[in-house]
């Protein structure tokens, strides 16, 4: 159902993951995971080691944060986040490279997982693993299946349907076994015996690599999927792989599935087998005008400017710098913002290719309706939202919108459909919350 085919532009698909040098100052926002921000457990002036817990996730949905480097805490204050608002963060001055004890940083594979289900979940929680597919939902919460619900399938999301981005792709190629072991651990943590890895058909090498090795891991199967955006959306992926549809407003649990990104599976491997907290991740730095686009293994908290520097510096023609891909990413207001757990890519676009087209009246061409993967009527929801008819926005199921942007991408009138939809969702969300209270 629905979907679009934006040009793929996977410029960095062939670029092996490089390790980015550690910057001298990092700032680590406290609100990196979906849910409540974590509470800092260090203070100005404290010395920290790499991998040391510096902020604890205390709410049910929130995650621990660890120091990515060793050094001194400069301050616990506010920094500008991706959208320009100030958010609490810890700044650390790098000094040396001292890691916490017990962290195994050797490249050796550890296949056997000796922990039991509970211990796995506890370890994942401790190590601050969050979903790396974009939503940064704390992974341990996903593994704690509420009573009465039955989960039978783990789905590993290797789709990476966003144009330009290749970090998951590279990970699947270069850390194939780790991903598979991570998957096995997740299966164990969930208590399921079946895992499906979904990969878009445009990554034959990844399909081949995973498919070849998957035979050795019972219960894991690899599936090629149609190349279509947003195939990687959780609900779309579940349907593509299992034929099940997550009901409106419900979680994947409802249909017995849990979805995790391949990056998450890798992070889980490192956390469980190597005792390593989530302090670094793979980020694609790309853009047609960049001289050295590539995939980098980056410490959390590294400023975006350092990444771009590594990729050849900011070209003069740059109009937009996007955190994420062109379909769902967030435009940055400043290059000083740090890489966070959810940063999968940094995309530089020039003025012409990123400029919005002229807005004209909706001609009711119904393209937005036919591409919406959720079966919504974007033109109508946007219109209602512009008219502030919030009740009809709600009954039009605006809350189902996954903000994939297919509608706005395809609209020949260049209408800012998703802009209006987001506003509508925000308002309706507020209304629903008020109603509950």
């Amino acid at each position, binding site marked *: 159902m629905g979907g679009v085919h934006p040009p793929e532009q996977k410029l960095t698909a062939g670029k092996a993951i490089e390790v980015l040098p550690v910057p001298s100052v990092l700032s680590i926002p406290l609100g990196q995971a979906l849910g409540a921000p974590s509470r800092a457990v260090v203070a100005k002036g404290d010395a920290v080691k790499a991998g040391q817990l510096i902020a604890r996730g205390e709410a049910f949905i929130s995650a621990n944060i660890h120091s990515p480097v060793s050094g001194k805490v400069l301050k616990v204050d*506010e920094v*500008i986040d991706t*959208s*320009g608002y100030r958010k609490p963060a810890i700044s650390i001055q790098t000094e040396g490279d001292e890691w916490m004890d017990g962290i195994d940083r050797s490249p050796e594979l550890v296949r056997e997982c000796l922990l039991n289900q509970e211990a796995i979940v506890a370890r994942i929680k401790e190590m601050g693993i969050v979903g790396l597919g974009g939503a940064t939902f704390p992974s341990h919460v996903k593994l704690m299946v509420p009573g009465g619900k039955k989960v039978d399938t783990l789905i590993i999301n290797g789709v990476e349907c966003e144009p330009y981005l290749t970090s998951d792709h590279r990970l699947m190629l270069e850390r194939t076994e780790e991903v598979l072991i991570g998957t096995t651990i997740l299966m164990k943590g969930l208590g399921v015996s079946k895992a499906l890895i979904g990969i878009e058909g445009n990554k034959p090498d990844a399909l081949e690599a995973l498919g070849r090795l998957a035979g050795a891991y019972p219960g894991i199967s690899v599936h090629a999927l149609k190349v279509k955006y947003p195939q990687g959306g959780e609900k779309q992926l579940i349907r593509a792989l299992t034929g099940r549809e997550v009901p409106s407003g419900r979680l994947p649990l409802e249909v017995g599935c849990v979805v995790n990104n391949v990056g998450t599976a890798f992070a889980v491997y490192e956390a469980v087998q190597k005792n390593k907290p989530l302090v670094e991740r793979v980020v694609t730095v790309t853009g047609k005008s960049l001289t050295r686009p590539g995939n980098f293994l980056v410490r959390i908290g590294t400023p975006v400017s350092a990444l771009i520097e590594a990729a050849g510096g900011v070209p003069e023609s740059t109009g937009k710098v996007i955190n994420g891909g062109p379909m769902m990413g967030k435009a940055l*207001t*400043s290059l000083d913002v740090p890489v966070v757990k959810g940063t999968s890519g940094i995309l530089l676009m020039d003025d012409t290719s990123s400029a919005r087209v002229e807005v004209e009246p909706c001609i009711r061409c119904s393209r937005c309706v036919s591409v919406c993967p959720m079966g919504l009527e974007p033109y109508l929801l946007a219109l209602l939202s512009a008219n502030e008819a919030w009740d009809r926005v709600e009954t039009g199921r605006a809350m189902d919108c996954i903000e994939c942007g297919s509608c706005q991408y395809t609209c020949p009138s260049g209408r800012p459909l998703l802009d209006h939809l*987001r506003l509508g969702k925000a308002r309706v969300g507020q209304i629903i919350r008020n109603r509950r209270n």
Partner: protein
Amino acid sequence: MDQTVLFALLSLGTLGTGSAVILYFVAQRFKVIEDPRIDVVNELLPAANCGGCGYAGCRNFAEAIVKNESLEGLNCPVGGNEVMQRIAAALGLEAEMADPLIAVVRCSGSHEHAPQKVKYEGASSCAFAHNLYAGESGCPFGCLGLGDCVVSCDFDAIYIDGSTGLPVVDIRCVACGACVKACPRGIIELRPKGKKDRRIYVSCVNEEKGGPARKNCAVACIGCGKCVKVCAFDAIRLENNLAWIDPKKCTLCRKCVAECPTDAIHELNFPPRKPRGEEAAAPETQTQLS
């Protein structure tokens, strides 16, 4: 009597009586429906249906007035005291004298004072931009300049000044409060009009500490507290690094205005000060009279 006339009389008479009987029973069932005074009050109201009174339309307000049996706390901003007085007379009640209010835009982050750092492209709506990012100047509190307030105003009393990029309220404002609700950043405040339209207020809502605030905007309130100290009437409160002048206590003495190091306090419609050097340049006028 002519036969036709007789028949006519008979049949129409029967019908009439029949209707009367039916209607009598209708009448029995529908007792008094509505207080007639509601209509009286409704007639007196300006029929702007703006909702400024806090009720959904003029008629609802009229119902509330009649039901309340007193005018305490009820005010029609559009009609003002005059209308409330007339309603009071009609109902034999006392009208509470409300100070006339006007909308005040508490942001001076013009293009000049708070230079644009990034460019926004997308749906022209403050509400949307507010959800998306901090704003073109980087001030996460300041005016976004996309005019949600302008759209919300039924009285054409507010417009965006092209040179500053900020909204300006003019005398058509009836203090209905629509813009206050529309602004996602809570920049607009309804304040008493003041004697001779003179007002003093802090034209900033930035709650950041001084440093970050000034980084984005030259005229931001930095929360230094000088005004609080200089005010002899205890009219200024400082909370979250932001000063606010209580109009009920302020005597319009203008001391704070001179004290503010960033020119964040505005005075309106005062006669020019005796020349005291650079102070002569009056802050920009936010309300146009005439």
